[in-house]
């Protein structure tokens, strides 16, 4: 299966949790193709398997059956270290609870992926400050996470996800902890970044507002894809 940068394909994936005899099947026969630059929402009630699917896409879990291709690479066959390197190079993550390192300032948190990538101090400072400014945090570079509001923390988190120019950004309930006004701001930011750099966004959400503003919504129910709705252009 040939894929370009930012493209993502899931082929015949079945997955279950648990070990040994007691297995809880979670995903059944998933087939998805997401094109470059798409802004896709993964929706479904809790327990529908949407978070599991996201983890599979991120390479945090390996599928029991089936193949997952990201950027034409079969990440379901990568080992742990290859996955780490692949994430560093091609993927950005946004979490519901932000997951910023509490000991580091906003700037340092955004710098961290570049530190692991071996970027020089000067270059990464410039890059991190630039992207934080885009997020509207120019006055907050030296604040620690506990000195920032939820919305601000999520902006730092988005900046961190985008700082190494990934081709795909995966977000797990990015607006779940935010009020509706902030939710809209964050959503607008993500859409803006999606458009500007043509980065593929895959967002797990159960909020209707998020789903409505996506290019496409994939509904999951009891581990199966039940509906694919493409937003009319």
């Amino acid at each position, binding site marked *: 299966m040939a894929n370009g940068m930012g493209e993502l394909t899931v082929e015949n994936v079945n997955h279950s949790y648990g070990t040994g005899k007691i297995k809880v099947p979670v995903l059944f026969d998933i087939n998805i193709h997401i094109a470059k630059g798409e802004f896709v929402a993964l929706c479904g009630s809790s327990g529908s398997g949407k978070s599991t699917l996201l*983890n599979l896409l*991120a390479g*945090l*879990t390996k599928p029991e059956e089936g193949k997952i291709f990201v950027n034409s690479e079969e990440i379901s066959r990568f080992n*742990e*270290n290859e996955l*780490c*390197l692949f*994430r*560093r*190079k091609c993927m950005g*993550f946004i*979490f519901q609870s932000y*997951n910023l*390192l509490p*000991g580091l300032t906003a700037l340092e948190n955004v710098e*961290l*992926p570049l*530190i*692991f*990538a*071996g970027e*020089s*101090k000067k270059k990464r400072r410039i890059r991190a400050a630039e992207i934080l400014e885009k997020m509207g945090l120019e006055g907050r570079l030296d604040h620690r996470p506990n000195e920032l509001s939820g919305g601000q923390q999520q902006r730092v988190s988005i900046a*961190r*996800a985008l700082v*190494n120019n990934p081709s795909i950004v995966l977000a797990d309930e990015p607006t779940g902890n935010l009020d509706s006004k902030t939710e809209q701001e964050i959503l607008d930011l993500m859409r803006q970044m999606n458009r500007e750099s043509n980065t593929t966004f895959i967002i797990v959400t159960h909020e209707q507002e998020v789903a409505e503003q996506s290019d496409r919504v994939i509904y999951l129910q009891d581990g199966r894809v039940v509906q694919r709705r493409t937003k009319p252009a």
Partner: protein
Amino acid sequence: MKFIDSFRIVWRNLWRMKLRTALTSVGVMIGTAAIVAMIALSLGLKANAVKSLESWGNLTELDVEPAFYIPEEDRVIPDDERKKLNMAAVQELKAVKGVAAVMPIKRIRGESKLKVGRREGYIELVGVDVRESAAYRKDEIEKGTYLTGAPQEVVVSYYVPREMRDVEKEKREARMRNANKSGGGGGEVYFSRRGGGGGGEEGPAPFDMVGKPATITLTREYRIDDELKLEKKDVRVRVVGQLQKSENFRYGSAVYAPLSLVKEMNDWLNRSRGEEFGDTSSRRSRDKNQDEFVFDEITVKVESREMVESVVSDLKKLGYEVWSPARELEQINKFFFVIQMILGGIAAISLLVASIGIVNTMIMSILERTKEIGIMKVIGATVYNIRWLFLMESGFIGLIGGMTGLGLAWGAVELVNYFGKAGGLMDSLGFGGGGEEMTTLAVIPTWLALFAIGFAFIIGLLAGIFPAIRASRLSALQAIRSE
């Protein structure tokens, strides 16, 4: 990831849990301090012991004599079996492994006087093999050069120019004093005695005799019809050099001359005596001596201090008796080896306990930082990055312990040295042979300091291996979910 960045992250983590870092490194600190202080003490004691031995002579120089007695067989060696210090012996000694040079010596202990200008003094003439001894004696030259091999050269020891007196001048001064004494009052006598006699009481002022011509006067005595006769012979020589001050007082007023010159003088002294007496038995022995010139001493120079013990045992097998402070060294080495083993054992145990402490601390901080590790893995840290960070962290705990331990040991060493000096501990331990030379009880050489720090760092690294692997194996997904 760049090294400097990993260093910053590690440092930040250690600083964040500074109390725990400090407490954990205390274990390493105590272990390191124990090792360093103990090794420093045993090194210092050993150095003092060796120094006090060295004041008896150079440790790599052995004086060889024929053995008279074999303790193993409880047997006195009869005269004809006994080794002789002749040329054959010199060749035999040269062949022993580890021997750098064989320096035979012939002494003239009879009446020999050295005269330079108007000064003169009694000396001990020491004939040396110029070629064999040059390499080792050159360094001991203070002024001028060592014997070059030219026939009429001599080198004097440090004390010779300081003990030679201007006999004529002293006589003149003595006469003047006597004159003053008879003419002046009591007080004046006192003053003049002080002023004039000072030179005589405190020893003559040293003078430079290097490069000056000198005369050695030999005196032999013989009887004719119960009448004691003295005969003198002057030998013209040139003083080419003077040796440094030496701790070794065995050669106090020695004048070193080429062996051939001393042999010639020796022949003159013996021959005339024998001829004058017309004694056939002594003539026979003299003839024998001429066939087989026997030295008074043979000094063997050993290549290095480490070789001394093996050379000593080889020489004993050949039938020589060896006198050297190095024989004491053997005992000292054994003694300190035992001490070092015991102290090493104590330190090893304390470091083992300390390293378990590090492992414990690291596992605890991994538990605490599980979520952080997960986040780092998701945003681009590789398995190796994580492993490296935790390895460095525990290595640094070891390093901190090592450095503070070194500081502690240094303080302890200073204290011991201070009180040791004040209390004369060295003397009571029996290592005070050097007397005024005794300075420090314990020393921390650079290699020991570096070794201690390096060792503590390695202990930390080793203790970090297991926790680091554990950290890197954490599932990113579960790590993120943990709170």
